[in-house]
C-alpha cells in the first residue's frame, strides 16, 4: 500500500508534510514530552512491534502474499495519536534503513496508513465495542484498511488530475489496484488478526502494560 518515491510530485507531497508536521509535533509532545526516559523506550518498543508485525507475510490464493499492518491494534490499545507516531516511525525506518516507501512521500503514507486508517478503525471500534464486541474489532480493522487504501487511491487520483503527464495512471486503475485486494483479502486478514490478537491480549490482561 506504500506509495513509492516518484509517484507524487512536490505539489502533493509538500502540502502533505505541512499537514503532517504539526500532527507529528503534537504526537511527540504528548507521548515523548513528559519524561523521555519512560516514553522513548515504550514508543521505540511499539514501533518495533508494528515494524515486525508488518514483516509477517500472509500467503493468499494465487501464489502471492500480503502482509499484516497491525496499526489498528495499536490504535485500539493505545489511541490513534500514538499509533500515528509509531507508524510514522515505522515508515521512516523502512525508508531510511530498508529502502521501502520513500522520504518524499513519507507524510502522505503516514497520513493515510498511520492516521486516517487507524483513526477510522479506532472510531468504529469505539462506536460498536459495547454492542458488537469482537465484531467491533474485526470491523474496525477492516474499515481501517479500506480507509487507508482509499486515501492512497484518492491522493494518486488527485495527482493524476493535477498533472496527468506526471502520473498517467487514472484514478480508476489506482483505486482498483489498491481497493480490490484490500476489500477482498487484506481487510479480512487484518480484521481476523486484530480480533485474535485482542482476545489473547485481553486474556493475558496486557492492555495496561505500556
Amino acid at each position: 500500500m506504500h506509495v513509492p518515491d516518484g509517484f507524487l510530485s512536490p505539489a502533493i507531497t509538500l502540502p502533505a508534510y505541512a499537514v503532517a508536521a504539526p500532527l507529528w509535533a503534537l504526537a511527540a509532545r504528548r507521548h515523548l514530552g513528559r519524561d523521555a526516559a519512560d516514553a522513548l523506550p515504550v514508543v521505540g518498543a511499539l514501533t518495533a512491534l508494528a515494524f515486525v508485525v508488518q514483516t509477517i507475510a500472509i500467503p493468499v490464493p494465487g501464489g502471492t502474499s500480503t502482509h499484516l499492518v497491525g496499526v489498528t491494534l495499536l490504535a485500539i490499545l493505545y489511541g490513534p495519536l500514538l499509533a500515528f507516531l509509531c507508524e510514522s516511525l515505522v515508515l521512516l525506518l523502512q525508508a531510511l534503513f530498508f529502502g521501502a516507501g520513500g522520504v518524499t512521500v513519507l507524510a502522505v503514507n503516514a497520513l493515510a496508513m498511520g492516521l486516517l486508517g487507524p483513526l477510522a478503525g479506532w472510531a468504529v471500534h469505539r462506536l460498536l465495542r459495547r454492542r458488537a464486541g469482537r465484531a467491533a474489532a474485526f470491523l474496525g480493522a477492516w474499515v481501517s484498511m479500506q480507509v487507508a487504501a482509499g486515501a492512497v487511491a484518492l491522493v494518486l487520483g488527485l495527482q493524476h488530475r493535477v498533472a496527468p503527464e506526471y502520473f498517467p495512471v487514472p484514478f480508476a486503475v489506482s483505486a482498483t489496484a489498491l481497493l480490490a485486494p484490500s476489500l477482498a483479502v487484506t481487510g479480512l486478514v487484518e480484521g481476523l488478526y486484530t480480533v485474535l490478537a485482542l482476545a489473547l491480549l485481553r486474556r493475558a490482561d496486557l492492555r495496561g502494560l505500556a
Partner: protein
Amino acid sequence: MASPDPRRERLLLCGWLAAAFALSAVTDLRALGLAALAAAVAFRRGLPRALGRVARLVLPVTLAMSALSWAFLRLGAPVAPPLEPFLALAARTLLLAFLAFSVLARVNLLRALAPWPAATRLVVIALAQIHALRLLATESADGLRSRLPRRPGPLDVVRNASGITAALLVLAVRNAREVSDAMRSRGF
C-alpha cells in the same frame, strides 16, 4: 582506516533529500536520463549492488503498474496512449530508489543523527527491538512450519501471528522498561 566525517555524512543526507524532492518534480525523459547518468557516475562504487536492489525491490511494482495502466487506457481509447509519461514515471521511481540505496549505503545514520540525542536514542531502541523481535517472529514461523505436515495456509499464519503478537508485546514492554530503567540510572 579513518572514520568518515559525520558532517560530510549529514551534508550527503541533506543533498540527497534536496535531490529527491527536486527529482520528484521532473517529467522530462531526457532530464531524467541525464540525472541517472550523473547519479551512476557519482555513485559508481557499489553500482551493481544498488542496481540489484532496485531491480529486486522497485522494478517489478513500477513496471506492473505502468503496464497495467497503459493497457487499461489502450482498451478505452481508439489510439494507443503516449508511452512517454509511463516511461518517465518508471524512470523517476527507479532513479529515486537508486539514489536512496546509494546514499544510504554511504551514510552511518546513527552518527549523522548524533546532534539530536533523543532521536538517536529512539532509533537505537527501535532498531534493537526490531532485531530482537524479528528473531522471535522468525523462530515462531519456523516452529509453525515444523509443526504442520503441509505449507501453512493464511489462517494458520494469522492465528500464529496473533499469538506471537501477544508474546512480542510482552517482550517489547518488558524490554522498554529495562531500557527505561537503564537510561534513568545513566542520568537521562
